[in-house]
């Protein structure tokens, strides 16, 4: 005699596992949600503090209690380390020892080793990524203010390609300070290099405002400036020639997920990351890229090399001109 079928078991087995976000997406969401949760906690504590302070003031003993009330240090998470190796974090006093090793709090200092750089993702919305060259030393003064004490920092405030749905730079302010110099992005990718008291700024995309004392200039894509804090102080601007400064920047570019995404979107993201202008030899090639869905893990290669690898496996090719920073997508070899 046949056993009666368990319909509920059949249904659940038949439907299979519920879809789960990838580990990468899970981590990014956890990171962002946790930061917002902590922000909410701080806000509520601040309100409670103000209420208590008001009461205390009314009782005339506010001054006596003030130091006790404000001394509730709590780590404020400002960034998460990604693709990190061989580095040192100096935690802020009274601050972030409770944080996971990959999290950075306000006041923390970060030094990269002599041989390796690091890629960071910055809070709160995850759209800004920072890359630090080897031998770099920075300190988070606040959630939107980073002090460059030595070395070089690359800032990408949109963390993706235009049109990929990830451009939220306007909501993610960040100021880099280096001695007397101050660098503010206006939706961009730029590199700041500190050499003693001087700072070099190179704009790869978008626009940047640099300030030294009362002098303030706007720099556009392809422009650079040297901010000399010594002597009378001066900003000298110029145009960037293609050089090797971007090599370390590209080597530390965040890896781009490809699973389930179309080739065109991935190429745009990679081109943006690599500061490249993307062109197609024909409209048909662009359409073909748009209808090619990729599968597999993110490739551990710089943007230009990743593009080449993906195009090769998709039956397409590319010719690049490192001199003017553009790539042309062409039919693959027959």
């Amino acid at each position, binding site marked *: 005699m046949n056993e009666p079928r368990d319909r509920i078991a059949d249904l659940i*087995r038949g439907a299979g596992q519920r*879809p789960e976000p990838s580990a990468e997406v899970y981590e990014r969401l956890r990171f962002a*949600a946790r930061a917002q949760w902590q922000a*909410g906690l701080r806000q509520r504590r601040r309100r409670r503090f103000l209420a208590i302070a008001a009461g205390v003031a009314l009782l005339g003993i506010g001054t006596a209690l003030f130091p006790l009330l404000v001394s509730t240090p709590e780590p404020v998470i400002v960034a998460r380390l990604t693709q990190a190796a061989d580095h040192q974090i100096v935690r802020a006093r009274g601050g972030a020892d409770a944080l996971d090793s990959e999290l950075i709090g306000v006041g923390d200092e970060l030094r990269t080793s002599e041989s390796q750089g690091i890629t960071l993702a910055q809070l709160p919305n995850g759209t800004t990524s920072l890359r630090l060259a080897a031998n770099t030393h920075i300190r988070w003064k606040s959630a939107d203010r980073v002090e460059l004490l030595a070395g070089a920092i690359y800032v990408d405030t949109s963390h993706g390609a235009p049109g990929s749905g990830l451009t939220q730079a306007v909501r993610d302010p960040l100021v880099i300070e280096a001695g007397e110099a101050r660098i503010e992005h206006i939706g961009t990718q730029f590199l700041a290099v500190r050499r003693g008291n001087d700072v070099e700024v190179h704009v790869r995309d978008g626009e940047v405002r640099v300030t030294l004392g009362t002098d303030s200039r706007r720099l556009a894509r392809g422009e650079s400036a040297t901010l000399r804090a010594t002597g009378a102080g001066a900003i000298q601007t110029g145009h960037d020639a293609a050089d090797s400064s971007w090599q370390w920047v590209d080597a530390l570019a965040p890896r781009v997920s490809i699973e389930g*995404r179309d080739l065109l979107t991935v190429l745009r993201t990679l081109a943006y990351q690599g500061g490249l202008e993307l062109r197609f030899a024909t409209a048909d090639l662009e359409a073909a890229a748009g209808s090619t869905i990729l599968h597999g893990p993110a490739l551990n290669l710089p943007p230009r090399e990743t593009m080449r690898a993906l195009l090769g496996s998709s039956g397409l090719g590319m010719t690049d001109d490192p001199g003017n920073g553009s790539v042309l997508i062409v039919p693959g070899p027959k």
Partner: protein
Amino acid sequence: MNELPTDREMVNSMIAGNEAAFESFFREYMPRVFRFVLPRLGGSVQDTEEVCQEVLGRAMRNIAGWRGEASLSTWLLQIARNEITDHWRRKARRASVEVFAEDDPLVAATLESIQDDSNRPDRLADRADLLNVVHTALDRLPAHYGDALEWKYIDGLSVAEIGQRLTLNPTATQSLLARARTAFRDAFTALTGSTAGDMP
């Protein structure tokens, strides 16, 4: 038998700044929000991540505002609905019209009442494919019910192994599985208007 913390206890702990409570919340609810948003954005993982970030961010900033009048899950999914609407508005493009049975107010009310084991409607229109219905039904159960059913029927875990994961003794685990099956049957019925036994 160890009692699993209620949503109220978990939220209270989060408001008090308890890290473990945040982790439990995230582990339990983020995948549900993700699965809720994903099909409503045409399966775009990228857009789903963006919207989930907004949903969870808003929920985390306002977690103290959850009064417990609706379940935590319902509260979160309402935030998700609003964010999805905003998303399409921002994109300034017409979304293809996708209808989800669980968005129907009557179905939503039924799913909300599952924990009370009462108030089931008889027939509702069959509007979603079977796989999605099963996943949706699992997602709308208390998280440990859905997980326990998957562990038993998909992963093939024994009652003892499931009990170990939930830190429950075998008797309590058996009882939980029975309740989970009943809740699943109710959710499934609410979504499709048919019972599991009606399925071919």
